């Protein structure tokens, strides 16, 4: 026991800990733009299971509308895109901790979120819609949903948390971590209604027609934008320039039509 005295052990651990800290300290002396250009790689955070925005092919390669956007940005900067698959909390924290340069992941731009990360101008605008199974004849309008016995499935912490109570204050809410789980819940009857953005619903209706129906009405206005780390004006300037031209040149409309199958809804609100 004498060789492993407490004093010696703790000093060994302290040295190892200090060494780890030094090795792990990131060298952030460059701005994001400088880092991307010098390394030749654009690190993009995406969410995997959200077609047609982004999904993974059986071989593990990402594909989708969001993926194509990221590839075009990388091409415009003459660098290679590197995709990192993340989940809902991680799509934010990778920007805050410098592990990704941009996030293209169906991000809704809100003022509150803008206090911790930066957003470009929007590239698509979506609205909240409600989806039910086709065999549920008692749920036809929003008034039918506005009932304590009706359970609405939403993704946790998303914009639906505010918008669903606004649209149907009396309905009960069940929170899930991702869209796949809500869909499974809807299929098995654990929830009666699924709330999602109207583009995701449209895709579902196309792929599984006849199984679901969408209730009439749009219940929110949400701008989907690219996320980037806060406090980096040069990086934001470059990305925002790209987004503006992507929208204005019609490139966005063509890409959208290719992945979604119908025309891009207007991005600018009419006011």
């Amino acid at each position, binding site marked *: 026991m004498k060789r492993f005295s407490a004093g010696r052990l703790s000093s060994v651990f302290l040295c190892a800990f200090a060494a780890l800290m030094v090795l792990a300290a990131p060298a952030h002396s460059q701005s994001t733009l400088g880092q991307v250009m010098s390394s030749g790689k654009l690190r993009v955070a995406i969410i995997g299971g959200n077609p047609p925005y982004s999904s993974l092919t059986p071989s593990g390669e990402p594909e989708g509308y969001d993926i194509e956007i990221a590839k075009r940005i990388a091409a415009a900067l003459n660098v290679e895109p590197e995709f990192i698959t993340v989940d809902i909390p991680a799509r934010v924290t990778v920007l805050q901790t410098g592990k990704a340069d941009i996030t293209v992941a169906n991000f809704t731009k809100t003022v*509150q979120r803008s206090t*911790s990360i930066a957003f470009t101008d929007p590239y698509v605008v979506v609205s909240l819609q409600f989806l039910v199974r086709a065999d549920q004849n008692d749920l036809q309008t929003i008034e039918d949903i506005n009932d304590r016995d009706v359970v609405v*499935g939403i993704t946790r912490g998303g914009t639906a948390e505010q918008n669903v109570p606004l649209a149907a204050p009396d309905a009960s809410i069940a929170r899930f971590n991702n869209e796949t789980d809500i869909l499974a819940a809807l299929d*098995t009857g*654990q929830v009666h209604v699924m709330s999602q953005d109207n583009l995701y619903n449209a895709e579902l209706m196309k792929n599984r027609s006849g199984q679901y129906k969408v209730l009439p009405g749009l219940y929110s206005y949400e701008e989907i934008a690219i996320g980037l780390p806060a406090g980096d004006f040069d990086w934001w300037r470059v990305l925002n320039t790209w987004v503006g031209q992507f929208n204005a040149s019609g490139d966005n409309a063509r890409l959208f039509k290719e992945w979604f199958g119908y025309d891009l809804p207007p991005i600018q609100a009419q006011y």
Partner: protein
Amino acid sequence: MSYDLNLRTVVPYLGSLPEAALVTVGLSVFTIVLSLLLGIGGALLRRSRAVTFRFVGAAYVEFMRNTPLLVLLYLVYFGLPQLGLRLNGFQAALIALTINSGAYMTEILRGGLMAIPRGQYEAAFSQGMTGFQTFRYIVFPQVFRIIYPPLGNQFIQVVLGSSLASVVAVNDVASWMQTAGSATFRYIETFLVAGIVYVGLCQAINLARIVTGRLLFGPAHVARGR
């Protein structure tokens, strides 16, 4: 780049935290009590003289110890409705957690029971005690003193495992953490607060375990050669 840690951003969401913590505590306590009962049953099954009972007990333990809790949760919440039994999130989480934890409780109790020497049973029998009296007055007090540490570990595992209930629409602390984090994008702060709450809950349940043990079986100063 640096991250500005700012706990004040979490303050508007702290209002819903007590209710979430209550759900976690409720789920954990119910699971602990029910899985303890299941564990007692399982331990007795595994120690019975009939081969079929022993096999059933062993199969239950092996299956539950070798499947992830998440898979079980999905099976109970999404799979059972397809067989006609629809449970809400809390019920599904309670059932999945209980039968999962019951397997570990079975093993803990079985280990405790195996450590009681045969002589104790013989001495009790010679004093004219019935089987039930033997268990209640002689065997179980000794068993509980032996299984104090692994039981404490298992209680903590239950509390931490209850965080998975957020996957099936239960509004517990893990759900609060995701909701508040997603609304503010301040994940590091919400993760920190949730972590502190879980530490507090585990310590509280640990304390309750020690106090209950003292009340039921007297102070644990048994001279077992320590």
